[in-house]
């Protein structure tokens, strides 16, 4: 029963993902790629979960590496996206940019 419920979440999330960015202007393609790269940094949560239940030395090493990579994905993804979008605001009127691109 639980498996089926997770399958529902799975399907609905796929539709949300498709819908949420369906009208993105060309100029935001790269920042949005970077932003979604940050969002899947939530893999860190899974890594922490795995390390929490690690018991053998092998599992501890694998879990440690998983948290290391997951933390890098989350932290690095945030900084890079923030910098990209920061450059955006510095360029001036963002609304003018959209109109030109659209």
């Amino acid at each position: 029963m639980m498996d089926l419920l997770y399958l529902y979440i799975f399907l609905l999330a796929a539709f949300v993902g498709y819908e949420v960015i369906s009208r993105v202007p060309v100029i935001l393609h790269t920042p949005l790629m970077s932003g979604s790269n940050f969002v899947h940094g939530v893999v860190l949560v899974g890594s922490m979960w795995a390390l929490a239940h690690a018991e053998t030395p092998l599992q501890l090493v694998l879990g440690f590496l998983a948290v290391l990579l997951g933390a890098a994905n989350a932290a690095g993804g945030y900084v890079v996206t923030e910098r990209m979008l920061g450059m955006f605001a510095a360029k001036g009127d963002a609304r003018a940019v959209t109109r030109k691109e659209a």
Partner: protein
Amino acid sequence: MAWVLNGVYLVVAVLFILGLKAMSSPRTARRGIAWAGVGMVLATVATLFVPGDRGLAYFEPGKTVNLVLLLVALILGGGVAAWLGRVVKMTDMPQMVAVYNGMGGGAAALIAAVEFTSEQPPTGLHAVLAMLGAFIGSVAFTGSVVAFCKLQGIMKKTFRLPAQNAGNVIHTMVTLLVGVAIVVWGPHWWLLVPFFALALFLGFALTAPIGGADMPVVISLLNAFTGLAVGLEGYVLQNPALIIAGIVVGAAGTLLTQLMAKAMNRPLTNVLFAPITGEAQAGG
């Protein structure tokens, strides 16, 4: 305790979706990344208090090693990545996205490795999904590393193996066959090691022939791959935050990849397979 954690994950999922939505419009984009950032901090802090067999898993007696390893990994991984992200040149941003994406894929593959080596390895549907997540995550890992090397100028040549196209198809099928063997016969080390090795090499073989100019599209595709891998591992861990965030990114990333290819006036298949058919020039 578990319901508090799941409640936090629900809030996190909403923040991620709203954040992505905001990021797809120039006026609200900066607000979007801030919301998603708050979501990530919430998720990380809440996960420190994962329930274990006797109370909180990280604070049980005998789990000091796990806690120390966790803190070292968080500070080291997060700190170095944030510092690098801040100091690199603005023009080097795409390869930074690639390398951080690869790390996410690697993390997803490692979670599967931890699951498969545990005392009660996943069985049935869970084993299939863990295997698929490990496969996709490993491909995203090495693929992203190749993308990084190309954009950084470390890897200047485009490697092309003989009969690349057919070779990649056979390579994929063999890897998945070993994966099926893991599901059927159980996660023995003599199956897991070749499985991960084959999957990692596949990421290399798929990306190496693609030229540097097409890399942003490839990075976007690998980004969607990592999202999917994260979602699959979330299913195995029964963690809704991972499922929602991973699959949303998987779907959004796939659409974004198509949009990027369209903006370049080239169909996606041309970007991915042109080096093999020889229709486009394979730049360095």
